[in-house]
């Protein structure tokens, strides 16, 4: 059953709708509420997500569930070393019956695209997808096709088993709004999951069919418009800039966040505020989205790497050191 979602909604309605969607997702992705929240923020903001985690943590299930709950078109591509750009975007075929050339659209023509193990494909294929992500338009044999909004790519990477992979270049990583690290669920959550599977309350195979749709593409776009309307004080804009600029000046980082990072931080902080039930951003919203927005845009220096520092630990330091915004 699809809930009727009006074209425009009040902030309270928007928060309630987002809460319902999150609750549905948390039913299948047990013990990962932070992950579902971050994916929701990216989806509403209209950004792409890079998810890093070992296999078996429910990345595909999350994408399928999102498609089901939001009644979005969903496609999945398993990236392999022999994947060609045309396997992603589509190509032209000669139709012998009509005697004419016909465009065969690739899996990128969708709302929600799961690019599984994106770093397994060569750079040329990665670049084709990343171009689509940026332009939201596909050109095949000179003919351009606009992708219907929303268009969100959920790309996954495996942090282990790096042999034979093609790491994404920094410039291309910057096109992802979020990089989300998905980790194992806690002991209690995993025990709860096991009990649910053993009791038959949860199927042990990937199955999002039990979920009920809560919104559609128009609903997601309406949520995005509501997020845009959230108040962002000037002092918070200044705070975001100080935070991002601090990453550029940090001695342990050879690459800091660019202007795209500042914009992403502001937009996602607004969505985070909306999901928290507010129509204004507070400094905590910025701090909450800082790690997923910035972690893939920063590059650690060799010295810091040898010293055992990580981007995460440096971000924590920065969030403690950069003075909270002043009113």
């Amino acid at each position, binding site marked *: 059953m699809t809930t009727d979602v009006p074209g425009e909604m009040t902030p309270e309605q928007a928060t309630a709708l987002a809460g319902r969607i999150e609750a549905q997702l948390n039913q299948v992705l047990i013990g990962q509420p932070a992950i579902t929240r971050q994916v929701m923020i990216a989806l509403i903001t209209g950004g792409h997500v890079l998810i890093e985690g070992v296999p078996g943590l429910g990345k595909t299930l999350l994408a399928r569930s999102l498609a089901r709950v939001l009644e979005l078109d969903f496609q999945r591509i398993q990236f392999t070393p022999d994947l060609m750009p045309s396997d992603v975007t589509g190509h032209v075929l000669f139709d012998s019956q009509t005697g004419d050339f016909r465009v065969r659209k690739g899996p990128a023509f969708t709302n929600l695209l799961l690019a599984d193990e994106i770093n397994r494909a060569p750079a040329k294929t990665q670049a084709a997808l990343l171009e689509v992500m940026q332009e939201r338009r596909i050109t095949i044999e000179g003919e351009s096709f606009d992708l219907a909004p929303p268009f969100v790519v959920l790309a996954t990477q495996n942090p282990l088993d790096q042999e034979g992979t093609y790491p994404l270049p920094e410039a291309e990583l910057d096109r992802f709004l979020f990089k989300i690290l998905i980790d194992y669920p806690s002991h209690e959550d995993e025990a709860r999951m096991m009990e649910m599977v053993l009791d038959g309350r949860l199927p042990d195979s990937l199955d999002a069919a039990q979920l009920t749709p809560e919104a559609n593409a128009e609903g997601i776009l309406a949520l995005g418009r509501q997020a845009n309307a959230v108040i962002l*004080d000037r002092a918070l804009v200044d705070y975001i800039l100080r935070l991002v600029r601090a990453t550029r000046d940090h001695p342990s980082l050879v690459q800091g966040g660019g202007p795209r990072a500042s914009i992403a931080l502001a937009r996602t902080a607004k969505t985070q505020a909306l999901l928290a039930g507010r129509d204004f951003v507070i*400094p905590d919203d910025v701090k909450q989205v800082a790690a997923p927005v910035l972690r893939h845009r920063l590059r650690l220096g060799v010295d810091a790497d*040898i010293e*055992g520092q990580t981007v995460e630990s440096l971000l924590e330091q920065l969030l403690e050191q*950069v*003075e909270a915004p*002043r009113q």
Partner: protein
Amino acid sequence: MDLNRLNARLAPRSSWQAVDLGTRFYRRWWRQASLVWLVFTAVPFALLAGYAAATRSVWPLLLFWWLKPLWERPLLAFYSRALFDDYPGPLALLRAFPQYGLNGLAAQLTWRRFSPSRGFLTGVWQLEGTRGAQVSGRIAVMLRPPGQRAGTLTFTVLGLEHAMTVALVVLAMTLVPWQFNLEWSVWFQEQSHLQWGFVNLAWYLVLMVTEPLYVATSFALYLNQRTWLEGWDLQLGLTRIGERRRRAGGAALLVLLALCGAAPHPVEAQAPPPGQAESRLKSLLHQPCRSDFSRDNGTAHQADPKQQAIDLLASDTFMPFEERQDRRLRESLRDDDGDSWWQDLLRRLLDQEPDGGGRDPLHVPDGLITGLGYLLLALLLVVILMMVRRYLPGVGGRGPDGKPVMPVRVAGLDTRAESLPADLEQALDQELARGDVRAALALLLRDGLVTLFHYRPLPLTAGATEQDCLRAYQRELDGAPVIAWLSALINAWTRTAWAHRPSDEQAVRELMARWRALRPPLAGGPR
């Protein structure tokens, strides 16, 4: 024993030549020396390294490293006897340890532990048996040129030890099959017990080479220094000549004996009885240097023959008197006393040594190397202190007493106690009278945070937001009435500050009224 059986030819050498002699000692006796090292150190090392691997702690190995002067004593005892073709076994050395190993050990393990001349000076205690107040004077004599090369030797062997350890570990790592997935970064961050144990073992294997080498070269430097100071080479050489002459007989012997007595170092003009030559040299090795034995000190010990020789040398027939005059520029006659302290220091550091170092194209001033060594040590200590400060929990953001320090700003608000008005209520009324609700709430929040921090100091940072403060105090004072008040205040504040929707005046006055009741017990001080 005749002197030809001596294992080394005594001669005044340059420091580098003496070190070279030491390496020859090591190459000749490396098996026995390594065995001595193993017997004395294998068990203590196994115990300490086992404990270190189990706990992944560096302290046990630091202890083993600190005890190096102790482990080096049996090696020196071995070399000093092997020089006379006497090769004591490890067990004999173990039994005799109280006789040779204890004198001066406490000093070497405490305030003299960082002496760069450690190996060189061990002989002062162990071989000469010098004790008490005489030690400092004796060390000062021993460190005269060319003896101060010992520091260079110590730092060189230390560098060799570390380079060999790293090389051995790297070599082993390159031989580990790739399936073990050994990464350099992982290696330095998370070592398993096995890796920890392996690194320790590599270090021990390297020590098995470098320590006997270090003791041998230091011993050779020590022998060389005493040869320079006491003229052992002359004594032994003249003794040999004396023996030959005694066998040859004749009047020439008398003249030679007279000349022997005139040598700067008094020697026994009469040849020692057969079989006593070895004990003579041993006694030389094991006796302290007395000033009347010094090459530089001409005080007569056996007055008559020496005086005769001096008279002979001073006579016109032996050394004709000649008077010469030459002219020099006034500048060249200026005394060095006019130099500034840094010029003095530079001269001391870069001065050429009298052992021929100045002619050596590879000459590196010894003072410079010793200075660099100490500089590296100081840098290491600074780095360790910085790491301790960085990694010890709770050190950052805390005062000298270990208590958290309130940042100047928290949540963007000035939280210095002196920035708050003396009469909070009056100041609040003034702000409300002006219609500035935001300023009134800010005042209340600042006073609330400062008072709470005074009551219960928590490690807040400059980046802490209002919600961070609330969460921190919720964890600390969960259920306390002040937490409900702070939550309400922060709610009102965030709506006013970030949503630009000021609370009404009445709500602010209610918050002030609640604070009036809550504040006195909190302002009373920490609990």
